[in-house]
């Protein structure tokens, strides 16, 4: 494969992976605290539509991203109130959140459908951002750099800080954490809100990096991929990064295969479309098999906690 093909592929794959990576990082933190929020897809849609609306109204990308994060965090807090304070079933409530997000975004996005949204482009000077080779470092949207910083930040927070330790402890044994004197529900609310904010930012990646407009169900199931990635990546941020980029790589190959035609036609296009999902799952299953026995799932994941008093 020639060099001038590799660079565009890398650029495309990084863009395609970024929303999955950001959403999955948020979900990872929520799950580490013991909360399973299946509403990622819905929260991403809410984030995407709010980002489009604010962008078209104010013309400010960053304000749009902040509003997207805030709106999704609010929807996550509704989920949090139901599952944490009222101990509702997390799986059912998460699915309901996705349905809510899908419906809300379709309704709220109606007036904006089809309007062109300006992309959020590289913050670097054109000499770097559009340089033939150097653009693989400088040619990305700020959201991409944000996602990479967040991979390190989430890892550092969880593994190196006291607050991260408390968060993991709450997800590991809620009753023990309570008896030592930590606020289990408080930690979980914060984690769920963080997960929501990240899903909102992930949602804003769609209009700002990938498809510069609003259409219904814009996220096309990437929220579910993010959820699956968290599990297969064994709740480890760097493995999440690898999984998201692998997914992006194969999804990009699919695009190029379609465009190139010829030999790639051996496989039917439906199979090409399914390939990223299959390959991502396969690779991550193989990775997680190698390290069997390590109990990577937070022990209290999905279990409601009622403080005894």
């Amino acid at each position, binding site marked *: 494969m020639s060099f001038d093909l590799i660079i565009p592929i890398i650029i495309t794959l990084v863009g395609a992976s970024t929303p999955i990576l950001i959403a999955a990082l948020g979900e990872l933190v929520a799950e580490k605290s013991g909360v399973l929020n299946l509403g990622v897809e819905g929260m991403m849609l809410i984030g995407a539509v709010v980002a489009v609306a604010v962008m078209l109204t104010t013309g400010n990308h960053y304000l749009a991203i902040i509003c997207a994060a805030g709106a999704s965090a609010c929807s996550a807090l509704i989920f949090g109130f139901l599952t944490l304070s009222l101990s509702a079933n997390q799986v059912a409530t998460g699915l309901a959140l996705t349905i809510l997000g899908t419906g809300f975004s379709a309704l709220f996005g109606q007036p904006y459908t089809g309007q062109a949204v300006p992309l959020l482009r590289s913050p670097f000077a054109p000499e770097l951002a559009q340089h033939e080779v150097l653009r693989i470092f400088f040619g990305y949207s700020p959201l991409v750099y944000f996602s990479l910083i967040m991979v390190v930040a989430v890892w550092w927070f969880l593994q190196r800080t006291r607050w991260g*330790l408390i968060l*993991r402890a709450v997800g590991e044994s809620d009753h*023990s954490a309570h008896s*030592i*004197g930590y606020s289990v529900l408080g930690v979980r609310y914060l984690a769920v809100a963080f997960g929501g904010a990240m899903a909102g930012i992930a949602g804003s990646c769609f209009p700002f990096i990938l498809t510069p407009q609003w259409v219904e169900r814009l996220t096309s199931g990437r929220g579910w991929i993010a959820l699956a990635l968290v599990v297969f990546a064994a709740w480890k941020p760097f493995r999440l990064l690898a999984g998201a980029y692998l997914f992006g790589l194969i999804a990009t190959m699919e695009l190029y295969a379609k465009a190139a035609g010829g030999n790639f036609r051996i496989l039917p296009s439906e199979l090409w479309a399914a390939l990223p999902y299959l390959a991502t799952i396969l690779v991550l299953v193989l990775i997680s098999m190698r390290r069997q026995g390590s109990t990577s799932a937070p022990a209290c994941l999905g279990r409601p906690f009622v403080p005894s008093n």
Partner: protein
Amino acid sequence: MQNGSVPRLELIGITKSFPGVLANDNVSFAVKPGEIHALLGENGAGKSTLVKMIYGIMPPEKGEMRWNGEPMDVPNPKAARKLGIGMVFQHFSLFDALTVLENIALGMDGNLSNRELEARVREVLKTYGLTLDPHRVVSTLSVGERQRIEIVRALLLNPKLLIMDEPTSVLTPQEVAQLFETLRQLASEGCSILYISHKLNEIKVLCDTATILRGGKVVATCDPKQETSRSMAELMIGGNLKDVSKDASRTFGPPHFVVDNLSVPGDGRFGTALKDVSLSVRKGEIFGIAGVAGNGQNELLSALSGEVPVDRDDAILIGGQAAGTKEANARRKLGLCAVPEERNGHAAVPDFTLTDNAVLTARDRRNLVTAWLINRGAATQYAEGVIDTFSVKATGSAATAGSLSGGNLQKYIMGREIMQTPDVLVVSQPTWGVDAGAAAAIHQALVDLATAGSAIVVISQDLDELLALCDTLAVINEGRLSDPMPVADADIEQIGLLMGGVHGESDTTHMPKPVVEPEAPHAV
């Protein structure tokens, strides 16, 4: 300790109720500075509730707590720790997936770097002669090692009042002696200790005062040195304590359960490999296996029960039949039943009812399943039989296993196996965390089963229990089993040394545990 000095902790008329239960009823007592104060009572007497209130986990409904004479307000454990109250929990408040060091960090409120914390942990371990690897993940540790984490965590806080809930149940005699030395040092520095234990002889040796609770009320306050273990036990249960009656003249039948050079590779990085374990138990004999937690007891129980079949069929003989490669169910049909150490999650499914838990192990031996369907009537009847016979305090056979207190669940699980009248019974830690009355009942049931002709293996870290119960004793250390010795000739010093890994002729590279001279107490 001076007479008339202000008590470190004073409780006045503490009352706490839960739906349907009055857990503490007008409880008053005081702990002086530097006093080692025992809190005694059966399971359900309200000891745990009381200490939870002192540690700020739950608020009292009525009554007042005073700290050095001042009204004390502990809305949460953090506030309690700030006052200088440390606690070692009975049900460990540990996080399985985290390392020892992380677990300790979670119990500390100050902001210490990992390196500083590790240095302090190592210092405390050294001062008190405890062994523990700070970087191990808790899920790979034995119960005894887990308890050490709790102890270290409390000691690091430099406490003014240390609450210890059954701290010695998993230690060797030498370690107990060491711990007591530590506690006495702490007390002599002015730290008060509130000591909860079922081991009355320990309380006699260690404690200055004992407050006895029964049914949530204070029934007596006494000086344990002036009392006998028996008199205190009777105050606790409010009646006469039955001795374990064992017919000393009883004779044993032929060997019925034989283990021949059993070797099992260790599981994972931290499992202990079993090396050439041989034992032979006669009909009517109770064979005890002593040892410090984590020396292969769990692996041995799994191999004997059939949970992990071994590769050589004739390594285990039940009544002359080779059963090494058979699984637990097949061994049950041959007459072997087993009770593992962990009650919840291993011996019983916490979310299942007692009836369902009975079906899990008794289905074949008690015909609780016909044509692949559970025979509800028979199962319920069996579960209720166990509840009645073993005086299990439960709301009925429909109660979930997880809703029972530890001692009651243990009685139920022991009863479930014993009432299957097994020819061979293998039990691990039969009375861990169980009070004197319940422990006596369990011991008596084991002795009765042996008298009726069963071969019994008891794996325990409680040496007193083994000496009272067993006919023959061996010690397990690093997966090797010592030669068996008749209990009548057993020498506690010798057993203690075997538990610590001094084999005499053994070629093991393991360093013998030094008998640590108590050092000058450090200000931790």
